[in-house]
C-alpha cells in the first residue's frame, strides 16, 4: 500500500477499511478461526517466528465497554425528564464535555451472546462500579492499567521482540509488560500487570497471564475481576499489519464460566509513528488532590450556555475522604 507521509491518518483509514471486512467478521461471527482464508503475509524474524515488533493500537470501543451496547450520552448520567434508563442525561462532572463525553455504541468484543457471564453477586458489583465510575475506575487515577485492558486502551503500544522476550511498552503512564518465552521465576508479589509466560504454537503467540492483584478493571463500564484472574492470550498474525488478539478469561470468584474476547490490533503505519509520553500521574493531581490545595483552582465552570458548580455528596464509607477531612 502506498502512503503519503502528509496524510498518515488517511493512510490508516485506508488500511482500516482494507481490513474492515475481517473486523466485521471478527465481531459478528465466532472469531475462533482468525486466520485469513488465503493465509496472511507475515513479517518474520531470522528464526522464522512472526515478528510483532512495531507500534500497535486497537481500533474499537472495547475500552468503553467490552459488551455489546448502544451509544449513551455520557459515562456517568443522572435521571432525565422521564424516569427511564434510556432517557438519562449527562451528570454534572462530565456535562461540559458535550458530545465528546458520549459513549459510542459497539457490537462488543465478547464472543457468543456478547454478555459477560457474571455470578449474580458479581453482576451487582459491576453495576455499582458503573454507577460510581468517577470514584472507582483505576484508569481515572492513572493507576497501572492491567492486562488485558492496556492492550485496547485508546493509546498506542510498542512491541519490542527479542529472542526470548516479547516486550510491550504502553504509552499510557509509561508502563510495560514483558512476555517471557524463557524460564523465569514469578514476581515476588501479586501485580497490576500480571506475570506473562509465552510460547509459540505455530504462528500464534500463546501467553499465560497470572499473579494479578485484582485491582484492575476491564473497561470504563465497571467490568472487573478478582486476583484469581487467569488469562490465556493468543496473538495470531492475520495481515502484515494486523494481529488477531484473543483472550480467554477465567476468574471463578467473579464469573460462572470462562469467556472470550477477540479483536484485531492494527499496526500504526505513520512513517514517523513513535510512542509518546502520557505521564498522567501529573495530569490527575488536580483530580486526586485538588481539593486539598490551600486555594482550590477548580470548582465552578462557566460556559456559553450553562454554569456548572462541582459540588457532590460523598458516599458514606469513602474511607480516604473521611480520613482527609477529619
Amino acid at each position, binding site marked *: 500500500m502506498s502512503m503519503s507521509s502528509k496524510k498518515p491518518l488517511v493512510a490508516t483509514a485506508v488500511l482500516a477499511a482494507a481490513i474492515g471486512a475481517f473486523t466485521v467478521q471478527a465481531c459478528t461471527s465466532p472469531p475462533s478461526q482468525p486466520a485469513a482464508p488465503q493465509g496472511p503475509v507475515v513479517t518474520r*524474524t*531470522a*528464526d522464522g517466528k512472526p515478528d510483532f*515488533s*512495531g507500534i500497535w493500537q486497537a481500533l474499537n470501543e472495547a475500552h468503553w465497554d467490552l459488551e455489546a451496547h448502544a451509544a449513551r450520552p455520557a459515562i456517568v448520567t443522572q435521571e432525565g425528564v422521564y424516569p427511564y434508563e434510556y432517557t438519562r442525561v449527562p451528570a454534572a462532572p462530565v456535562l461540559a464535555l458535550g458530545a465528546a463525553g458520549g459513549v459510542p455504541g459497539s457490537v462488543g468484543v465478547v464472543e457468543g451472546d456478547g454478555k459477560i457471564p457474571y455470578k449474580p453477586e458479581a453482576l451487582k458489583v459491576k453495576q455499582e462500579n458503573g454507577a460510581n465510575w468517577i470514584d472507582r475506575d483505576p484508569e481515572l*487515577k*492513572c*493507576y*497501572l492499567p492491567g492486562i488485558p485492558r492496556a492492550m485496547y486502551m485508546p493509546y498506542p503500544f*510498542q512491541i*519490542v*521482540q*527479542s*529472542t*526470548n*522476550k516479547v*516486550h510491550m*511498552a*504502553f504509552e499510557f503512564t*509509561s*508502563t*510495560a*509488560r*514483558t512476555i*517471557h518465552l*524463557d*524460564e*523465569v*521465576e*514469578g*514476581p*515476588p*508479589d501479586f*501485580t*497490576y*500487570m500480571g506475570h506473562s509466560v509465552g510460547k509459540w504454537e505455530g504462528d500464534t503467540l500463546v501467553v499465560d497471564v497470572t499473579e494479578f492483584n485484582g*485491582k484492575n478493571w476491564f473497561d470504563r463500564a465497571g467490568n472487573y475481576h478478582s486476583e484469581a484472574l487467569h488469562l490465556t492470550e493468543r496473538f495470531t498474525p492475520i495481515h502484515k499489519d494486523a494481529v488477531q488478539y484473543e483472550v480467554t478469561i477465567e476468574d471463578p470468584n467473579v464469573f460462572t464460566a470462562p469467556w472470550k474476547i477477540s479483536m484485531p490490533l492494527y499496526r500504526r503505519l505513520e512513517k*514517523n509513528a*513513535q*510512542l*509518546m*509520553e502520557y*505521564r498522567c*500521574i*501529573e495530569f490527575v*493531581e488536580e483530580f*486526586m*488532590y485538588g481539593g*486539598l*490545595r*490551600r*486555594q482550590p483552582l477548580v470548582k465552578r465552570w462557566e460556559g456559553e450556555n450553562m454554569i456548572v458548580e462541582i459540588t457532590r455528596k460523598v458516599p458514606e464509607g469513602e474511607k*480516604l475522604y473521611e480520613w*482527609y*477531612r477529619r
Partner: protein
Amino acid sequence: MRNGFRRSVMDPLAIVVLAAVVVLGLARVGGLSLVGRAQAPVGEAEKAGPVPRTSWDKPDLTGIWTNSHDIPLQRPSKYKDKEFFTDEERQELDKIRGEIVSQDVRRYGRGNAQDVGGAYSTNIFLSHKPTGKRTSLITDPPDGRIPPFTPEATERRETVRNFVLELLQATDTCKEKLVGCAGGKYGPPSPKYHDVPPFYIATGAPGGGLINRSDHPEDRTLGERCMGAILPDFGGATGFYPQFILSKDALSIYYDTGQGQGWQRMIPITDRPHLPGHVRLWWGDSRAKWEGDTLVVDVTNFSPKTDYQGARENLHLVERYTMKDANTIEVVVRIEDPTTWTKPWTVTQELSRQPDKANRHYKEPRCHEGNYGMPALLAGARAEERAHARGKGPHPATLCSAGCGGFAGGFADDGEESNPFNR
C-alpha cells in the same frame, strides 16, 4: 514462590510508613524501594564469555543490568588528582560508609524535624553497594568534577536558593543555623511565603528547589509526587535495575528505579530526525543508531519541568552503549547544556548483568498508587493553617517539612556522619 518480607514491603501499609518520611521532606530522593532484591552481579569474579550477538548480528544488550558498585558522581576533594582508589582506600570507605548507614536508631536532637530523618531505617530501605574503583563517575573533565556553571545558571540557582531560604527562615533549621539554612538567616515568616516559585519545583537537588511549603502538590518535589525518575539515571541508594530488550528497530529500557518510580523508555533505532522543537518531554526524545558495535543514542527535547544537576530543557545527552563482554555494558554519556555549564562533561559507568531467570525486575511502579503521603501532607498543612487561624497552633511558616536537614539517604548533612563521597 512469594517471599514474606518482599510482600510486606510492597504492602500499601509499608508504603504509608515510608511516605510519612517522604512527607517530611527529609528523604530527598523521595519514593519507595526494596533492597535485598539485587542478586550478586554475575560480572567481576567469574570469567565472562564473549559478547552475545542477535540473529541480525548486533551485540545483544537484552538483559537485566545494574551498577554493582557505588561510585561518587564527582570526585571527593580529598582524592583530587587520583582517578582510582587503592584497594585500601576502598576498604576504608566501605568501613566508614557501612558504619554510618547500618545504624538502626539515630537521633538528631529530640523532638525536632531533623530527628525524624534518623527514624528511617536506611539499612532496610536503601541500598548501599561496595565502593567502586573509580574516584568519580565523571571521566571528563579529568578532574572528575562537573564544569563550572554559566553566569545564567548561577543566577538561576541563586534565585531558587533565595526563594528556598525565604520559606525556611522562620523555622528552627535557620534558628539553629543548620546546614539547610546555609546562606540564610533566622527571621519572621516571609511575606513571600505564598508566592509562586520563580522556577518549576523539580528535584530536591540544589537548584531544583526543595521548598518548605505544601500549598499545592506542585510545591513538593517530583520524587514526592512519584515523578522522580529522570534522565540520565546513574543509580543511587533507591535502587537501579534497567532491563534492556533489543529488537532491530528499537531498544527498550525499563528503569526499575527510584523506589516505585520505575518507567518505560523507548529508543527508536532510526535515522528519523528528532520531534519538532516545541514538543517537550519529561524524558526527552531519543534517537539511536549503531556505530559499529556501539549503540549511540541522542537525547533532546527535554521538558523545563525536569532537572538534572541544574540543567532543564536545554539538556542534551549522547549516550554510548558498548558491551565489553557477556556480562558488562559500558555506558558513556556526554552531558551538555551551554545554558547551564561552561563546557560538556562525560560520565562513564559499567553495568553488570543480573541473572535473568531470577527475574529480579519489577514493572510495578506503585509509588503513585500508594502515595498516601501526598494527600496526607496537604491535609496536614491545611490542618496546621486551621489550627493557627483558631489561635491553637504555631504559624505554619515556622514548621519545617522540607529542606530541614537530617539523615537524608542514610547520611548526616555534615560532620562525622556525612557521606564520605561528598566531603
